[in-house]
């Protein structure tokens, strides 16, 4: 009898047994997230793996932010989605197997070879807009005031309502944002860097570093326009791109030689006073300022990820022949990139101060990623492939990498606007996928 009584009691107390702790309700603070507009370049569009594709767009950091904003009154977030996932205009890169010139088959980035579901990608969808995400791959800060910009850029051409007449800033203003993120400026220096410094400083070409005065004026115009109706937001600064895997994956001291190879190379280069040792040596690179047209690399110089691997392995690039200069970022070019990045970031900081807006110091954040970040048990770093944060193009991020960036943006938003928007579960999104 006793037993039955006791277990009856047990059943009653079981119900009241479990913990009832609940998450605190997020608050919006003193910002209004009703209409969020994200202004930016490829990073904002969700570009990854060397191209733009639909699932990348769906996992763009603005899309993630909009999802969080919905918890504090944010509305729908419309993106100019592509119809397919193969990549537009070129196919995306995926991890796969390829055989190199030495006959070795290894895992690495290869072009996606699945279904080409890109039909209709170039069709203008401006009528479906205006869009909340106006991120355009390739766009520079100085492009924002150029009327008819959409004529030159296939991505802008896709979704601008009047691509041949509008300025990019016009498209950004159509939604009448109550809150915005602005992440522009990287392409004002990236084009120079990814072309191995083939352009000039203070130029207007795609491979040039934009003139600081034009950058500053255009940046201020964009911020003025975005805030003209009282919108609040955050300005995101430019990362030092020499920390990203596009520049750091192939080491300057990547010429690994056996003793015999070192001896014969030393003999060949004896007339110009370059010698080699068994083990790791600095590559030989083209240098037009050198009397002989080439020299050995130094620490702090970079070889681009796009350098053909087979040429390094089998065609004698970097040893018998210098690596062509368009694949090398030399010390003076690195200095140009870093000086420009510092100046542009200063212009962004000044604009922020003038408008009472916070700066998301993405530059510092990416630097912390160099030494590694752990989130919920997963390690992230700037290491190519295994770092998990950068996509296969070495410049843009994986969805998890974008989520880390989005969380860093959220931290600044919460701190500035006294909101308590929850952090994103980074690992809900995909990292790199392995075959």
């Amino acid at each position, binding site marked *: 009898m006793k*037993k039955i009584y006791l277990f009856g009691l047990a059943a009653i107390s*079981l119900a009241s047994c*479990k913990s009832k702790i609940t998450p605190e309700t997020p608050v919006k603070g003193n910002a209004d997230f009703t209409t969020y507009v994200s202004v930016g370049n490829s990073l904002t569009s969700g570009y990854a793996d060397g191209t733009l594709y639909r699932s990348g767009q769906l996992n763009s950091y603005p899309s993630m932010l909009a999802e969080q904003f919905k918890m504090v009154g944010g509305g729908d977030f419309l993106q100019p989605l592509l119809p397919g996932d193969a990549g537009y205009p070129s196919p995306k890169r995926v991890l796969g197997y390829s055989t190199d010139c030495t006959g070795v088959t290894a895992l690495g980035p290869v072009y996606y070879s699945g279904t080409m579901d890109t039909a209709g990608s170039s069709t203008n969808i401006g009528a479906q807009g205006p869009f909340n995400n106006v991120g355009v791959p390739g766009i520079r800060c100085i492009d924002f005031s150029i009327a008819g910009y959409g004529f030159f850029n296939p991505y802008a051409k896709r979704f601008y309502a009047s691509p041949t007449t509008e300025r990019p800033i016009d498209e950004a203003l159509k939604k009448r944002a109550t809150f915005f993120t602005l992440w522009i400026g990287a392409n004002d220096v990236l084009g120079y860097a990814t072309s191995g410094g083939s352009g000039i400083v203070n130029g207007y070409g795609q491979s040039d570093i934009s003139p600081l005065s034009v950058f500053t004026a255009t940046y201020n115009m964009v911020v003025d326009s975005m805030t003209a109706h009282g919108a609040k937001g955050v300005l995101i600064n430019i990362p030092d791109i020499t920390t990203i895997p596009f520049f750091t994956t192939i080491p300057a001291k990547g010429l690994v030689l056996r003793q015999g190879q070192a001896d014969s190379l030393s003999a060949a280069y004896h007339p110009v006073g370059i010698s080699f040792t068994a083990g790791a040596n600095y590559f030989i690179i083209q240098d037009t300022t050198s009397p002989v047209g080439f020299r050995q690399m130094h620490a702090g110089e970079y070889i681009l990820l796009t350098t053909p691997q087979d040429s390094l392995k089998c065609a004698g690039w970097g040893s018998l022949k210098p690596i062509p200069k368009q694949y090398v970022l030399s010390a003076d070019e690195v200095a140009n990139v870093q000086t420009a990045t510092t100046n542009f970031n200063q212009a962004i900081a000044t604009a922020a101060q003038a408008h009472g807006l916070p700066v998301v110091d993405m530059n510092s954040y990416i630097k912390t990623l160099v030494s590694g970040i*752990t989130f*919920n*048990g997963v*390690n992230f770093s700037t290491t190519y492939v295994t770092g998990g944060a950068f996509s296969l193009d070495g410049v843009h991020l994986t969805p998890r990498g974008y989520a880390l960036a989005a969380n860093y943006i959220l931290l600044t938003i919460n701190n500035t606007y006294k909101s*308590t928007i929850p952090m994103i579960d980074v690992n809900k999104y995909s990292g790199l*996928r392995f075959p």
Partner: protein
Amino acid sequence: MKKLCVSAIACFLYSTGAFGAGFQLNLQGLRQLAMANTGTAWPWDVSTIFYNPGGLSRLDGMQAYANINFVMPSIKYVQTPTGGYSAETKAQTFTPFNLYVGGTLKKHNKIGVGLGIYTPFGSGTKWDDNWQGRYINRSIALESYFIQPTVSYKINEKISVGAGFIYALGHVNIQQALPVQFANGNDGSGTLDGKANGVGYNLGIQVKPIKKLSVGITYRSQVKMTVDNGNATFVVPTSLAAEFPNTNFSTKLHLPGVFTLGVGYQFTPKLVVLADVEMTGWKVYDSLIFDYKTNTDQLADTHTPRLYQNTTAIRLGANYKVINSLSVMAGLAYDPSPVKDGYVSPELPDANRYVATVGATFSPIKKITILAAMEFVSSDKRDATFLPANFSGKYQSTAFTGGIGFAYHF
């Protein structure tokens, strides 16, 4: 910590507080459980083999004792500082049991002998496969059985002593997701499964300076559980299979020593009140080392800091004899957490615990006693981060235990 596994995509095995505090079961006797697990000072029945071997020679004759407990733990996790996310462990019922045979010999009633088989550590945690902490832990299950032959000697009416040898057997199974994704987006996973064994001892003394007062002191030694040739198995994309080879592992898990001082006082012929102070040497648990037979760039041996601190738990219980054949009990205990801030991990989100217990014993005939007890445990709400994995949240754990048992007096 991060540096130790910087080469790895995943620091496999952040977790494994395996034999940690939340896994300490204080359920080795139902009457004692019903009194918040006091019992060091009072030899209620043959389960004193666990609670104080020194009490065994004070029993009146031989007894056989069996009981089973139904433990239903539950942990809730809430993302912090704010969030739309919370998770709860899946409902599971664990059934640790106790078996004791022993008592005083007929011819030499100053000598007590006995054998106990009990489960001092056990239980488990199971989260949803896709929960936010999956790369730290998906599930952990632990079983342990201590087998303890015991002798006891009553030096005189005031003092008795006892000692038991412990042979410990255990089994541990830990599962987690690995942050390497298949082409379809699914996570890789890893499982560690191993059997453990170890030895230890249990010493006790009971002193009855006056008739109504009894004092007990016990020391249950540390038990070093050794896992040799445990199985580490991985499910990963083919291209990474060479980096995550199925292999063996070995590790040592230190079950801490426990020193207990107990006092019992008979206020009236019907009412006995007991108090125990229990010091557990969790400090032995300062780190956890896993050694894999085959190491690769991605599968390195791990050395996880734990930095547990010693704890002192306080237990209070009372036994009230309603009639000769029926007694009722109740108890309260406070059991502080050995886990420091920064090391609270989701497989064992430990926090200070508050315990309330009730129970009853009933003897329908003189030779038979039926025992039943219930325990409710609730922890503090703890805002915590597990630094090695940078995993933060607020946790609260609760557990309900019901136990039923049977004793036969020869």
